[in-house]
């Protein structure tokens, strides 16, 4: 069982969450052009290592939780609210 520590609900089973992708991308300005929007929607780094991502607590408090997860080991280094800046381990 993979536990994700929701900032509101506490540790909950992964089955209660929906993965919502990379939490580091930011929406370009409206006039940034088609290439910037293409990158915003489609281009992802797919790293082997620590990744900051969104997990939606769909079956719980329905909030988007920010999670620092290792893509190879699934270890979770930190979780937080959407506006939190989370520390990402060096390696």
């Amino acid at each position, binding site marked *: *069982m993979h536990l994700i520590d929701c900032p*509101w609900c*506490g540790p909950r*089973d992964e089955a*209660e969450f929906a993965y919502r992708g990379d939490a580091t991308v930011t929406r370009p300005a409206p006039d940034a052009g088609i290439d910037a929007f293409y990158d915003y929607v489609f281009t992802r780094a797919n790293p082997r290592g620590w990744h900051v991502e969104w997990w939606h607590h769909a*079956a*719980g*408090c329905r909030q988007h939780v920010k999670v620092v997860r290792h893509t190879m080991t699934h270890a979770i280094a930190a979780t937080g609210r959407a506006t939190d800046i989370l520390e990402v381990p060096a390696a």
Partner: protein
Amino acid sequence: MSAPEPAVPAPRSPLAGVATTGRYGAAGGTPLAIAEIPAAIVQLAARRGRAGDLARAVSGAFGLDLPPPGRAASARGIDAIWIQPDAWLLLAPRGAEGALAAEVKRAAGDAGSVVDQSHGKTLMSLAGAAARRVMAKGCRLDLDAPAFGPGRAAVTQIAQIGCVVHQRDAIPTYGLVVPSSLAIPFFEWLTSSAAEFGYEVG
């Protein structure tokens, strides 16, 4: 000129004809108690930046302190259960159609949004010494102390069904709120899980 409010029929039990009174499952010993509880159920959410105003309004009108995450509170026959940031479920014994929602809306004013869920959701209860063992068959929460206990509540999923779990006392008694449309499959999960201990539907 506004049209008159159309008459709304009282909620029917989604378990009518399914939850039949009687004793079932293993014989001997004290059976678990399972019941559907007719309740008025209202969802209350604070408008942006108005959580403090809403808490004061609800406290003033009902003597009820809206609880923090993971908790429930009770006063004057109303239970409040935290369900998400700045939002709660309020439950009371079923009275006149729409009465609780109207009362809560009157108290909340423009500090909160009120949705009557009395038709959309239904309340069941499970009580007995073995209740925690029944819950463990489908509930992923840690229901043992100190993680959970009387006055604690959580929104989770049981048997793939979204469920609000509220521990009411030390017996333990659990209040379980599920969508009415899924009340029958939930009741079937509950009774088949309770069968090995014996249960009484009241």
